[in-house]
């Protein structure tokens, strides 16, 4: 699994912080040929957003996508821990705190797109 968004220099304290950090962490050279939609479905509190990757560009949208390529589900708490490097993704997966649906190939591309 390679679904976490890797370790920023300063701690991100909210989902909005994470989203705000994405443009700076985006690596278009790693998704030049990719068209895919990644969705995050967070809980406690509920928050769903998705990112469309389209050949080296990305857009963030609020809400659910009808047919995302990959859907990542966890609590907000776990998500922030993963983003901040306070929890390993493998631990989140084996303890059932992180659930990933959809194409495993695409899921594992994610950590090369947002570094």
């Amino acid at each position, binding site marked *: 699994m390679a679904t976490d968004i890797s370790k920023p220099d300063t701690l991100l304290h909210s989902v909005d912080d994470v989203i705000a950090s994405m443009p700076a962490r985006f690596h278009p050279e790693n998704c030049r040929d990719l068209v895919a939609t990644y969705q995050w479905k967070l809980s406690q509190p509920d928050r769903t957003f998705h990112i469309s990757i389209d050949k080296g560009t990305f857009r963030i949208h609020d809400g659910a996508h009808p047919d995302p390529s990959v859907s990542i589900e966890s609590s907000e708490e776990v998500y922030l821990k993963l983003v901040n490097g306070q929890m*390993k993704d493998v631990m989140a997966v084996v303890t059932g705190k992180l659930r990933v649906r959809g194409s495993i190939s695409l899921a594992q591309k994610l950590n090369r797109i947002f570094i």
Partner: protein
Amino acid sequence: METTLEPTLSPQFSKLINRLNEVSDRKQMSVLHDHPWDLSPEGAWLKKRENLSIYGTEFYDLATEEERRLLSVYETGCWWHTFVIFENLVTEYYMKIINHESLAPFPAVIKYMHHFCREEITHALVFRKAMKHFSIAPFPVPDNLKDFYKDNAALADFPLKAVFLTIIIEWFAENNAMLDCNNDFVSPLARAVAVEHHKEEARHIEWGKSMIREFAERVPGFLEEAQEYTAPFMRNLLDMSTVNPETYARVGFSHPAFQDQERLFEAALFCENRDQINRRIMEPLLRFFVETTIYTPALHELWEAARFGPALEQVLARHNGRPDANDNLLDTPV
């Protein structure tokens, strides 16, 4: 990736299929007669202690002997149940492949797929019976594990990936099961379950490996996709089949250290003992991936990220371009 094979089979593959069909024709596992069902479940160990997930960690010493035994019961039961789930899924997909009729020009292949499904269902019956025998209630199979398979295998009308992922799972699970029970300490019934399963499963693995070789050669895009998803898929499989929150919960360890779930999981997943076991399980598979170029040096980084780096280097060092004649753990003494 929806496609059909060209209407020819290699002579080697035809020969293999015919041999497999003959053996499957000859003897079918009996739900009633092939295992010592009269053995008492009382006090039985279902896997050897060295293969308990907590063996070689501080938690092993903190567990009572009865808790260890219970862990051997539930970890094996959880495996059995995982087998049941996957055997049910693969049978649905294989029947779908048969019904799709793309393989109709190959009656021997269809025949073996029938045998395969029949044997899978028999295995599911036997595993469920064994769980009942040892009073092990069904496990909630980790959502992630099931999702990975369903999402990636069931997509197409003619799910080739199902064949690939299934063989990977079966082969891996088979190696695991054989390693777990090759010890006199383990209940003869649990060993019979593994051994009888193995007899038919070894054929499924041979078949599956040949199918994968055919796909890799003939089906456009198959190899490229497999090169990308195999490493993370294997890693998930390995980790999720090693530890399971439900298993620990059922044992109900008395020592308070077990409350720290994250520490417990981390200890079990990353200890030296587990690393050794995983290497043994994975070695034949890694050899096969190298041989079929499902592992390719260009994407070594993916394998590295999935923590197969050192094991792969070991295999690569030994691998001289020729496949191993017997690359599952057939010879493991039981």
